[in-house]
């Protein structure tokens, strides 16, 4: 039965620099980097060597633990470098792209007429499986998983996130094909969760064969973890899948055309961007092609992903595997005098979830926030803060403390299987004590996965 989910707890952070719904043109990137670090709890094993030729969709590396899960190349070209970090950890595979992309050819397929096993095999072969995430843990799905249900959040409620209605407009065919694929993977339902006010495009409204649920309320209402919690909370031992809306269309198009087309629309936003707008680019593309001449100042934080959960990248860095937006905000690496900009000032430029700065008197103001922590890390003092932005029946602060002390049983009891680090992003944002909540949750999930599988 379709559900109506009203999220009350949460916070929309009003940031400057939301992408206008126009499509900018960017120079095509000449090199592409696929980063194994975009996958959580993932130990990459290389399938290619430097100097080797690859096609778009041919596998680059696989997960050591689950070898049938492979990650494909977004473009065709030559593997020019395996970028390694400390202890020879693989940070990226760099590909010098051909002018014209050549694809690893697969036959066009109609998922509806295939068996579940065939669909799964096709996803694994065509390197599409990597787009499917599993809960618990928020890692790439395992091929032996039997998901109770599959969840698709049609909207991203994070600040400055791209608008899926705009991005997927006119892609009804691909999106529906993707849904047909996902339907073959589960005996349960495929849930498509739409925002009551934001999602109006036909691509979502006319989706067939899926359970459409309506969500309303502020961020994190778009987090699939929150939606799962309200639709059918996950118990220990259960597995569900989650796929991002854009990736559903990508999977669908790969089945329709037989080509692994990793191009996507990316929202370029943030207060340091002169003209925030959308760009058509390809996963792993060099971000500098998007930023060319469009960024103010030279001391900026470039984020692949959104400002709450994204990854910091260098100016010559590359778009992440799952990133649907690039945000550029000023770095906050200057000290702030307490009476003017610091803790004792009026704080008109500071955004806060509570009303301790006078900026609360301007409810429609958009903020130009930098990366300063706005205070030092402290012991947890204030209570009730996390709860006010955490719309799940879970005690976030108690769960964090359970993780800090490494008590696995307590973590399980308090609901760690239902959360992902992104669900704690707002807790981390509002925290007076500047606790690294997302990192703590990730460590907890890694520990649980290691100990409990």
């Amino acid at each position, binding site marked *: 039965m379709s559900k109506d989910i009203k999220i009350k707890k949460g916070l929309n952070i009003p940031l400057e620099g939301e992408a206008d719904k126009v499509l900018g043109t960017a120079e095509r990137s000449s090199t592409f980097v696929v980063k194994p670090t975009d996958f959580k709890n993932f130990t990459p094993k290389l399938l290619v060597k430097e100097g080797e030729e690859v096609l778009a969709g041919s596998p680059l590396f696989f997960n050591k633990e689950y070898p049938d899960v492979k990650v494909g190349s977004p473009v065709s070209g030559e593997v020019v470098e395996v970028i390694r970090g400390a202890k020879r950890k693989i940070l990226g595979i760099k590909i010098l792209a051909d002018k014209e992309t050549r694809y690893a050819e697969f036959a066009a397929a109609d998922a509806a007429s295939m068996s579940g096993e065939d669909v799964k095999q096709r996803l694994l072969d065509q390197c599409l499986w990597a787009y499917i995430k599993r809960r618990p843990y928020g890692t790439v799905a395992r091929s032996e998983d039997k998901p109770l249900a599959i969840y698709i959040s049609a909207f991203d409620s994070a600040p400055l996130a791209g608008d899926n209605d705009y991005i997927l407009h006119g892609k009804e065919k691909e999106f529906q094909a993707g849904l047909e694929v996902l339907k073959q993977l589960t005996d349960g339902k495929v849930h498509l969760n739409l925002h009551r006010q934001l999602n109006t495009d036909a691509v979502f409204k006319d989706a067939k064969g899926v359970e459409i649920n309506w969500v309303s309320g502020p961020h994190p209402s778009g987090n699939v973890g929150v939606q799962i919690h309200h639709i059918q909370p996950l118990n220990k031992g259960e597995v569900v899948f989650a796929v991002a809306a854009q990736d559903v269309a990508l999977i669908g198009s790969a089945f329709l055309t037989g080509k692994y087309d990793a191009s996507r629309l990316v929202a370029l936003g943030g207060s340091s961007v002169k003209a925030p707008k959308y760009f058509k680019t390809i996963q792993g593309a060099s971000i500098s092609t998007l930023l060319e001449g469009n960024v103010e100042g030279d001391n900026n934080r470039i984020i692949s992903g959104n400002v709450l959960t994204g990854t910091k990248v260098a100016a010559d860095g590359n778009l992440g595997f799952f990133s649907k937006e690039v945000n550029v905000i000023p770095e906050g690496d200057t000290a702030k005098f307490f009476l003017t900009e610091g803790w004792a000032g009026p704080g008109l430029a500071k955004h806060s979830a509570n*009303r301790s700065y006078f900026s609360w008197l301007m409810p429609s103001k958009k903020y130009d926030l930098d990366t300063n922590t706005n205070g030092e890390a402290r012991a947890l*003092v204030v209570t009730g803060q996390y709860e006010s932005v955490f719309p799940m029946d879970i005690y976030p602060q108690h769960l964090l403390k359970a993780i800090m002390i490494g008590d696995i049983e307590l973590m399980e009891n308090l609901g760690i299987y239902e959360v992902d680090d992104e669900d704690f992003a707002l807790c981390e944002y509002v925290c007076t004590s500047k606790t690294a909540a997302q990192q703590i949750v990730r460590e907890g999930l890694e520990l649980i996965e290691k100990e409990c599988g």
Partner: protein
Amino acid sequence: MKFLHTAFQNAKAPFEEGGKFEKYNKALTAIDAFETLMFTPEEVTHTGAHIRDGIDLKRTMSIVILAMVPCLLFGMYNAGYQHFSQLGVDASFWEMFQIGLVKVLPIVVVSYGVGLGIEFGFAMYKGHSVEEGYLVTGMLIPLIVPVDIPLWMLAISVAFAVVFCKEVFGGTGMNILNVALTSRAFLFFAYPTYMSGDKIWVHDGMTNDAISGATILGDLSAMKDGLVKSADGMIQFTGASFSVSDMFLGFIPGSVGETSVLAILIGAAILLITGIGSWRIMLSAVIGGGTMGLIFNTFGSNGLMQFDWWQHMIVGGFAFGVVFMATDPVTAAQTNKGKWIYGFLIGFMAIMIRVFNPAYPEGIMLAILFMNVMAPLIDHYVVEGNIKKRLKRLTVKTAAVN
């Protein structure tokens, strides 16, 4: 302000690695504390969310202090007002305020001096940064002691509370009992003659017989013994006469900052509007106090039990305790459900202790301290309820599958 920032960097340089006084590098902690007071550090986010809320512990604490300023100012004025009115001497506003200033300011200085001194010492010894918790405690303590408290007693009680109630548990955020109330409880049990009775609440009351410093609650507890049967009787009995508006505005004897409900309500408004104080605790404590008061009113078997339930809220330390002490997030219950229970029981027990305890007319201090101890237990059961719900969900599911 660049020069100031540079000055701090210069001051730290000799203590840093390779500097002249490298082996005294613990001093960095102290310099850091002052530097971060003047400048929010250049620290940027490294993991997780790239942007952070503007709030920090310094802002939080300074708002609580700001909320206490009306109480402090009125307390200074009332110290002089009580003194002169008991003596029957006419005095100007400034003469009254001056008495308070001269008496209260040293208390504030001693409270902060001793408390922060110990905090800095522990921070340097343990090598962590100086946290802001004491900034509020240091202001709370002067507001909950009698105006004539000898400063050495105050210093000892502050030292006791900070060391044994806070630092031994790990410092800010780790304490079980409210530090300011512990300091007051220490004074109460170690030096009872300076903390209770009818001589201490008005300046010079100990030395000048012309001053009767009896508090309303002190008078009320006399009513319990059957000496007087009504509020009118109380006034006849004690010779004191305080109207309800005196009680509300605070023109009554008592600890420095606790008397004016109006000033406390201004503070409460600041805490509630900014969202720093918990409205759940404040509201439920008032409900709890009212409930107990009403129960007593219903039976009314002695004078004190007949005292109007709503008047309980505007005399003694009830309002101050509920607004500033019970809401201390570290020692209160942490879950929202727990906060309702915690607050309710504080109010309930505060009035109960007032009426039943023969030795001590005020109950809010003991009620809050007791509930501080109980808060983790309340939270435990609230969280346990959540856990049970989750386990039940799992067992129902498993049963359905089987």
